[in-house]
């Protein structure tokens, strides 16, 4: 069985359920191991940066969370497209399940970024283009989730949120560049950027990789578990409707 047929067979809810029933526990355990390993390694066994002191340890939370915040939206976008084109319900529900995980990751990235900014910039919040873009991304997530929650009919909700996700993606990218323009245009290079990836030494890099793997696995496990719940919730919704009709 090639990859593509096995991927599309997941569109069958029964098959998705039986496959993820095995996958979720494995992913969860792997995520736990990587996360605990990466964070313990990073927190206890790495030296302080000569410039940033111990705040460099925040990197093990901030960078993976930011990574998953963006990839979470990307996953929602792909899942929405699959729903709009191929009408697989599992796909729409996966997009729905990804939103709460993505919003939490965005929140973590924002909080850890602000906490890191306090000693480095002397303020919790600077309107740095990157921080601002994440704040906007956070708002997009909120709107997306609110629209899902507001509509009763599952198919209508899936369609409308998919359209919102597509339009929102365009505007999110547009906002990213607009924000860049807005701040750079005013204060030429006034703020430090969070661009630390470039000068990260190996000592910091390996635990960071492990922690990233942990966040990715955790994201996958949570999204799959959430999708399972959404599939069940949908079946429950259908059963209740039938009961009321009878």
């Amino acid at each position: 069985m090639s990859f593509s047929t096995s991927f599309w067979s997941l569109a069958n809810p029964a098959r998705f359920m039986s496959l993820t029933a095995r996958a979720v526990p494995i992913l969860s355990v792997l995520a736990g191991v990587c996360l605990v390993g990466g964070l313990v390694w990073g927190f206890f066994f790495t030296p302080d940066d000569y410039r940033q002191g111990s705040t460099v340890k925040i990197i093990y939370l901030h960078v993976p969370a930011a990574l998953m915040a963006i990839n979470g939206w990307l996953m929602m976008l792909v899942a929405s497209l699959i729903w709009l084109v191929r009408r697989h319900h599992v796909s729409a529900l996966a997009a729905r399940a990804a939103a709460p995980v993505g919003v939490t990751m965005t929140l973590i990235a924002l909080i850890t970024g602000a906490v890191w900014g306090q000693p480095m910039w002397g303020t919790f919040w600077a309107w740095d283009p990157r921080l601002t873009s994440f704040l906007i991304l956070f708002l997009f997530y909120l709107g997306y989730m609110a629209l899902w929650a507001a509509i009763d009919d599952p198919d209508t909700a899936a369609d409308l949120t998919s359209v919102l996700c597509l339009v929102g993606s365009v505007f999110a990218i547009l906002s990213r560049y607009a924000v860049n323009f807005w701040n750079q245009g005013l204060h030429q290079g006034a703020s430090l950027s969070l661009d630390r990836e470039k000068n990260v030494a190996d000592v910091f890099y390996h635990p960071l990789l492990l922690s990233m793997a942990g966040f990715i696995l955790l994201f996958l496990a949570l999204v799959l578990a959430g999708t399972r719940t959404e599939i069940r919730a949908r079946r429950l919704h259908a059963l209740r409707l039938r009961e009321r009709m009878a």
Partner: protein
Amino acid sequence: MPDLGRYALEVGFAYAATLILLLTLVGITIWRGRRVKRALQAAEGRRHG
């Protein structure tokens, strides 16, 4: 416990906040999953019998 120097508060806060958020998220996912599963089983039970 490593010596965190003068940024101990910030680093500690960042880790604590992240762990709380992640644990809340995991907790909510598991809790909602269980609740929906139980409700579904009840509904299926009513239907079949």
